[in-house]
């Protein structure tokens, strides 16, 4: 699904050069659910932006679903984002002047889906996140958890192969966070690939696979006992790193 080879990302300002990602390598298989953890400034968000084609990388290759992203122009990247990726943002990023129905509709309109088909998908997705009855409400009339569920419905409406979640529970209390997480797990069971960036160890522990970004690189698991396995969590790695 995702194949990143020696990805580098350098931010250049007049004074300094910042290496946000350094020879970053990652493969994600179809159907995986991965939690990406790491300290602030480690390059998590840069990784997410590059994975989601929200910003270009400086060197290396990135294949998404077999497509070499580096060779695409701006329009092609926009189209690919629209077709393959569902985004879930920390701040929900709903459009405040649009009601829930219209918010979920946004990516479908960009894809040029006909009105009847749009209606079907929007109603199904809002139903799925338990907000079918509130389609005419505006985002500000909803709680944070409900807003994030709308954002999930928006991400799902395009039936993406790949969901990118950026701290999806970062702005939610623990109860709402659990609800959102349950929805994500459900989606994953139905076959979607999910990459979730989070700094919440508990949340990360629930994901079948964990990776940690430190200083713009995947943390070198070989330092620790054995290769990372599915049970290994960011919290464990951090604890062991502290011991070492």
């Amino acid at each position, binding site marked *: 699904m995702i194949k990143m080879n020696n990805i580098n990302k350098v931010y250049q300002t007049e004074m300094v050069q910042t290496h946000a990602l350094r020879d970053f390598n990652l493969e994600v298989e179809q159907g995986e659910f991965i939690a990406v953890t790491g300290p602030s400034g480690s390059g998590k968000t840069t990784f997410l932006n590059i994975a989601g084609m*929200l910003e270009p990388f400086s060197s290396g290759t990135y294949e998404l679903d077999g497509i070499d992203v580096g060779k695409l122009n701006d329009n092609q990247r*926009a189209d690919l984002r629209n077709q393959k990726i569902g985004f879930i943002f920390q701040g929900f990023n709903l459009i405040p*002047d649009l009601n829930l129905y219209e918010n979920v509709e946004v990516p479908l309109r960009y894809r040029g889906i006909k009105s009847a088909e749009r209606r079907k998908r929007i109603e199904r997705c809002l139903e799925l996140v338990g907000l079918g009855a509130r389609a005419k409400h505006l985002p500000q009339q909803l709680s944070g958890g409900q807003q994030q569920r709308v954002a999930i419905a928006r991400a799902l409406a395009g039936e993406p192969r790949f969901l990118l979640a950026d*701290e999806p529970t970062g702005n939610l209390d623990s109860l709402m966070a659990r609800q959102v997480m349950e929805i994500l797990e459900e989606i994953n069971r139905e076959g979607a690939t999910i990459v979730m960036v989070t700094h919440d160890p508990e949340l990360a522990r629930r994901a079948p696979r964990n990776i940690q970004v430190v200083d713009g690189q995947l943390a070198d698991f070989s330092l620790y006992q054995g290769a990372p396995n599915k049970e290994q969590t960011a919290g464990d790695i951090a604890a062991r790193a502290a011991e070492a």
Partner: protein
Amino acid sequence: MLELKPMINALLRSKIGAVLLLIQVAITLAIVSNAAFMISDRLTYLNQETGYDEEAIFSLSVSTFDPSINLVQQYAQDERDLRAIDGVIDAAMTNWMPLSGSGSSSSMHLVPNPEIGTGVRAAYFTTNEHMLNTLGAKLIEGRNFYPEEVVHADNYDKLPNTTIVTKDFAEELYPDGSALGKVLYQGEDAVEIIGIIDTIKGPWLNDSRPANVVIFPFNLSQPRAGFLVRTEPGKRAQVMAKVEELLLKSESRRVFYGIEGLDESKASYLARDTLVMRMLVVLIVVLVLVTALGIFGLTLFNISKRTKQIGTRRALGARKSAIVRYFLIENFLVAGLGLLIGAALAVLLGQQLMKVFSLPSLSFTFVLASAVFMLIMSLVAAWGPALRAAKVAPSIATRSI
């Protein structure tokens, strides 16, 4: 791909800025279309054909203060002197100057006083057989005055009995046939129309009938008199420069003044109207600029307010062109509605102006043309900000602030 419905819904949900802009656009259109119409009306007036070669004709006036001078003889001498100047085509003595704003007018009737009959008002010149040639007026029917028809006098004891009129006057007085050979009355005095000339304007361009002009063969020699002189092309300035000195040679006990080209007389007569028109032009330009700035500012404000939203839209698959289109269409909707309301306002304002200032009624073409112009202007004003919006990086969506 057109997002009209959600766009309209979104506009309706946060409408204050849009409504303010809409009002501004509407008011601007109402004022601009009326001002443009008034400018066009003024321009027609300012650029009206006068019937003269204004750059070849000049006037001069004389004031004679010695009562012992025989004015009839002196003025005849002056005319001869003027015609003898190199470059002068012809010269004629006259009571008033065309296009100057000063003149005499009188009602000409089909029947003598006190009978009641049709009368038409006309400006009149008292002059002689050289006047037509001096003015460059074109005779359409009939003939010029014979020299012996011209009354040379310093009083009103004997009056002329012929006249030459403009076709405009002739058609108004005799709408159903030729006026040539007909008799008309100024009070009780009868004159026969012996010639009809093509349109020339009298002293007042702002008259409701500026081309109603009647010419009498009457060289009235009074202490104050005026002359019109026509020169060959390009020679007027040099003639004007030496004319005073030359005429003073034959008789120095008098003063010449008002040596002025016909185009100059016209310009000073029209100075106020020209000024009003220029002010209207400035008003329009300022109004349109202010509105354009308003549109520019509001679009820019909307964009900076919605940076996150734009980034999110880009992340969700909007191409740059879709973002540009979004803002242009949004602007088009607001401006379009403003223009519709503005068109209605323009018509209402036009009706009021017509009533209060007796202006001609506003032609809808002007409203339409102003609206189209303003629509284009609004798109141009929104274009830059919309392009800027398209440059918002999709990665804005993942920033937490």
